[in-house]
């Protein structure tokens, strides 16, 4: 009887302990769960902040690129035209009516050309807002400026001009990526021919830039960490869940294909 009583006492003691342990586990579970959720929220906030900061950086870079183009244009083109106009007008001899008329006509033509160039520049100034008109227009504007330089033979197939859908953040990043790729071609590729294709298929935006420059070993810039331009391109493409395919062989040119879920 005594041993049975002891057994019951032990049983009650153990069951009470088990009943007490359950709330302990619950408290731990709640604490861990809240901690996990807090960390998750912090991570999400950090990712959002990083994205916003990258967007800001991209916006600044696009502005910088625009300013650089304007400065180059003013110096190399409009500045030269106006200097020539000044020289021509200075050399006008009013006593020689026929020659003076020719020189004034030439000056007028130069001033008209300057005005036309300035109008083009004004369009570029609006280039920052160009993404608001759609990525197709922004790509077109970028190609126009490349074409104006006259250093490259271009083949363009831009099917995004009439695109009705937009994604402002992605548009800005895609435009910046294109600027970065073109910059790399101008600085390093020594190319004479550039082909640009863009289209949208199955909610994926495709952009392909190929050139016939000196090419490079694609593994090298990554391992040396010297290719800041390419690193920046890879980082941006990851940010918009895109994919970048780079094909390059030394001496045979380079092609870069970008695929971005769109919009």
């Amino acid at each position, binding site marked *: 009887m005594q041993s049975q*009583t002891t057994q*019951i*006492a032990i049983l*009650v*003691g153990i*069951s*009470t302990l088990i*009943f*007490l342990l*359950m*709330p302990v586990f*619950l*408290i731990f579970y*709640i*604490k861990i*769960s*809240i901690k996990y*959720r*807090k960390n998750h*929220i912090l991570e999400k906030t950090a990712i959002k902040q990083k994205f916003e900061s990258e967007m800001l950086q991209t916006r600044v870079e696009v502005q910088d690129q625009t300013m650089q183009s304007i400065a180059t244009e003013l110096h190399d083109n409009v500045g030269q035209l106006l200097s020539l106009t000044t020289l021509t007008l200075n050399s006008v001899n009013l006593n020689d009516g026929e020659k003076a008329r020719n020189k004034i006509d030439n000056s007028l033509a130069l001033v008209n050309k300057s005005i036309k160039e300035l109008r083009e520049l004004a369009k570029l100034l609006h280039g920052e807002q160009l993404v608001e008109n759609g990525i197709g227009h922004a790509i077109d504007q970028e190609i126009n400026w490349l074409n104006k330089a006259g250093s490259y033979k271009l083949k363009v197939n831009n099917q995004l001009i009439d695109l009705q859908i937009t994604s402002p953040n992605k548009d800005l990043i895609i435009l910046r990526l294109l600027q970065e790729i073109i910059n790399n071609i101008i600085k390093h590729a020594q190319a004479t021919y550039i082909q640009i294709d863009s289209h949208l298929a199955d909610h994926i935006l495709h952009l392909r830039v190929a050139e016939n420059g000196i090419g490079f070993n694609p593994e090298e810039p990554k391992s040396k960490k010297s290719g800041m331009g390419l690193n920046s391109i890879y980082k941006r493409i990851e940010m918009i869940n895109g994919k970048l395919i780079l094909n390059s062989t030394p001496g045979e040119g380079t092609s870069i294909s970008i695929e971005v879920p769109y919009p």
Partner: protein
Amino acid sequence: MIKIIDPVTSVELVCLIIAIFFLSKDKQSFWTITLAYLAFVCCTEYFGQYIGAKYKNNLWVYNVFVFFEAGFISYGLYNCFKKYINPKPIFLISSIIIYTTYFAVFIKNGVFAFNSITVSVMSVIFVLYCLYYYYLLLRDEHLLDITYHSEFWWLTAVLFFYFGSTTSNLFFGLFKSIKIGPYPLTYAIYILLNWILYGLWAYSFICRAKQRKLQS
């Protein structure tokens, strides 16, 4: 003979002292009522001892106490729930169940038999409420720092006490005869549960004072 200090009354007294120290300036009605309830608990203990010493059976004192205990714990849980849901309907139903059981057992067994059925019923209800509160807490978008959350620890104390006492409540009559040292087994469990309940409540009072200080 009345014992001023025994394992149960000592922890109740300590908890009351901590409550006076940390809650006496609190303007929120729940914490003021908590302070009054703790004073009532201590008075009941000593009165119960006095009646026990004089008339042998003091169970009617604890039966009366159960009436107020059910009311106070329900009010406390109601106070915790109102941040998340409108708790009036569910608390109205649970109060009806508890007090109907209380009076039914009271009429059937009389005042001198301990109302253990009501205690069992209210234990089950309070445990379910506590688990529901945890569910609401986890589902809520505002993440609390539970380490210093006074209401969380007040409610957790309730969960420990009523969940832990389930076994003793179910076999109340059987375990009175089994002894651990000088105390019956149920009493030993009761001491342990009281230490947990009043210990966690004392901690919740400290958290409340800290919270009040931060808000001011």
